[in-house]
């Protein structure tokens, strides 16, 4: 391109990053099946080795790394995968996602402490319960247009939290304590030999769920995350995913092409809710005690930030986003009271730097670049000659 407006270093950096991520995209798209499986396998091995002390001392010098990996990191990732179904796939803005996390958490707490059910039973029930609550919330409200839905979901999140706070049966503001851990499956210990030590998991009891060791929880979360990914990925490539995409792009046209949009939106909401609920069950059983203030609005906002920051609609992006959003504030613990300040600034800067997210999917990138994609662009945007819009032409 000959235009001279784009020679500033920031734009060039941005361009460089874009072409880099695009080339990875392309490689991946054309990679043979076996190569992909090798990558998947490597990723899983990496994930298994992740809680190792060696990694932890760098990643998290101030606080317990395996626990961080379980929550917030793993928890945020799971929640972001769930919210991504709602926001990224179906294009509905949900500002009250934390409600489902709370419902899962309280489900675990109530069934675990009052009825003595085991974690595994509650996991199933909690997921169903959250999905049901998603349907109950969604049924009357999903007809609302984007921003109205946003405020209604926000309100729902607040209603759930306040109700929990005012309902004595579930402990009111005291919440519920003494929530059981998952029953230990086996005391089996990973042998302390060279190979396992090398990846830092020698001597771990991966199926023994206590209060102190965060690793077994992390592995449990990992399994859940992988299941969620497979589930969501398969939906994405099916009729369901196509229906979501069509709804996001033009809901009316979709409906007129025979897509029962309401049903699919509701399904997206329910799936998002179910995944959020699973996260809640996991969290509560690890935390032993939950109180309503564990489920504030800011958590909804944070998960949404994770989804958008990573690249709404694209799973690897969303996972990356969730990881960063969960990890950065912990890593910069050294900044003490300034870390939220820095975190806020980082959010703004990252969005300015890359409004389409760090790893957007191709399609979503196009949508977001043009301000379509479910929520549309800001109103008063008119490309003018003084804008950097010209740069878009050649990236």
């Amino acid at each position: 391109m000959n235009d001279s407006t784009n020679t500033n270093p920031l734009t060039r950096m941005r361009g460089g990053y874009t072409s880099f991520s695009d080339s990875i995209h392309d490689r991946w798209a054309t990679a043979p099946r076996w190569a992909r499986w090798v990558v998947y396998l490597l990723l899983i091995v990496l994930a298994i080795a992740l809680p190792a002390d060696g990694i932890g001392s760098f990643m998290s010098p101030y606080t317990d790394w395996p626990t961080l990996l379980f929550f917030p990191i793993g928890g945020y990732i799971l929640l972001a995968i769930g919210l991504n179904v709602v926001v990224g796939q179906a294009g509905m803005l949900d500002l009250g996602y934390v409600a489902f996390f709370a419902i899962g958490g309280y489900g675990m707490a109530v069934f675990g402490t009052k009825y003595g059910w085991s974690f595994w039973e509650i996991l199933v029930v909690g997921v169903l319960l959250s999905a049901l609550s998603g349907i109950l919330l969604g049924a009357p409200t999903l007809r609302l247009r984007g921003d109205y839905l946003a405020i209604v979901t926000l309100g729902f999140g607040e209603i759930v939290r306040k109700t929990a706070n005012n309902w004595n049966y579930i402990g009111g503001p005291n919440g519920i304590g003494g929530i059981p851990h998952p029953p230990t499956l086996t005391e089996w210990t990973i042998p302390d030999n060279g190979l396992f030590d090398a990846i830092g998991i020698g001597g771990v009891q991966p199926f023994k769920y206590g209060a102190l060791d965060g690793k077994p929880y992390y592995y449990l979360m990992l399994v859940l995350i992988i299941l969620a990914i497979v589930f969501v990925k398969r939906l994405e490539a099916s009729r369901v995913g196509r229906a979501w995409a069509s709804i996001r792009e033009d809901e009316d046209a979709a409906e007129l092409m025979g897509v029962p949009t309401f049903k699919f939106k509701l399904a997206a909401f329910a799936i998002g809710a179910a995944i959020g609920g699973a996260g809640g069950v996991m969290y509560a059983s690890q935390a032993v005690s939950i109180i309503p203030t564990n489920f504030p609005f800011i958590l909804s906002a944070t998960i949404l930030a994770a989804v958008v920051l990573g690249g709404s609609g694209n799973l690897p992006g969303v996972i990356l986003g969730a990881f960063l959003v969960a990890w950065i504030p912990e890593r910069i613990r050294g900044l003490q009271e300034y870390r939220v300040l820095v975190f806020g600034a980082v959010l703004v800067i990252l969005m300015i730097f890359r409004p389409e997210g760090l790893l957007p999917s191709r399609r979503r990138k196009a949508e977001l670049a043009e301000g379509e994609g479910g929520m549309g662009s800001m109103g008063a945007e008119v490309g003018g000659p003084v804008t950097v819009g010209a740069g878009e032409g050649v990236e």
Partner: protein
Amino acid sequence: MSETAAVPAEKKAGVPTLELRGITMRFGGVVAINDLNLTINEGEIFALIGPNGAGKTTVFNVVTGVYQPTEGQVVFQDSRIDGKKRFQVTKRGVARTFQNVRLFHNMSAMENVLVGADAHHRTGLAGAALGLPWHRREERDGRAKARELMEFVGIGHRMEETAKNLPYGDQRRLEIARALATDPKLLLLDEPAAGMNPTEKEELQGLIKRIRDTGRTVLLIEHDMSLIMGISDRIAVLDFGQKIAEGLPAEIQNNQRVIEAYLGVPADAS
């Protein structure tokens, strides 16, 4: 005018496919359609013409369930479809295109058509998530059907392209292919020739006829008189929400009311 535009020899005995019975549509105080009766027979190409704002697109919206008529009934193949949801109407066999192309712009052409084909698929969440054989068969069949339809409308060579990157004429065709994928018995085309050059219009004319020849009924809105006159079996003219004329093309062309309200004095045109 093209030579192929002859009126089909055997006129169907007139089995009605779509009937509008006393349709009135009011928005607030504005009457968009007033007591409209219309019968469209199986296998016909039926055109709806009239000045802008006459209520033509509103008719489409009433038929496809976008609006519920204030009064009257919409009967499709002997059962009422007013009051049905839009996707249910589509499943019954009514599909449409739009005045301004409304594709899913960022999806590929193939995916656009697949969305249409999905209208009759049954895969639910579980089927898709578990990759059940049923689901895989549907996907395969859907793709085959989509491929076939894209060949049929003449964009077989652009199946994997993103919809918005297609030339405008191809986007119009893709929209038709997407509508056909829902397997309609009645196809509603809203100004399909808008924005096409004469060559493209001629091809479109052929395409509409071929669609009719596959046994479907076509209802279209169009401003291009040569196209209308070339392919329509019957024409109805709307003005201010009322039907002011209905008949064979030749009758319409010479109808005094139609000329006054819509066509204008012929002398002006040249």
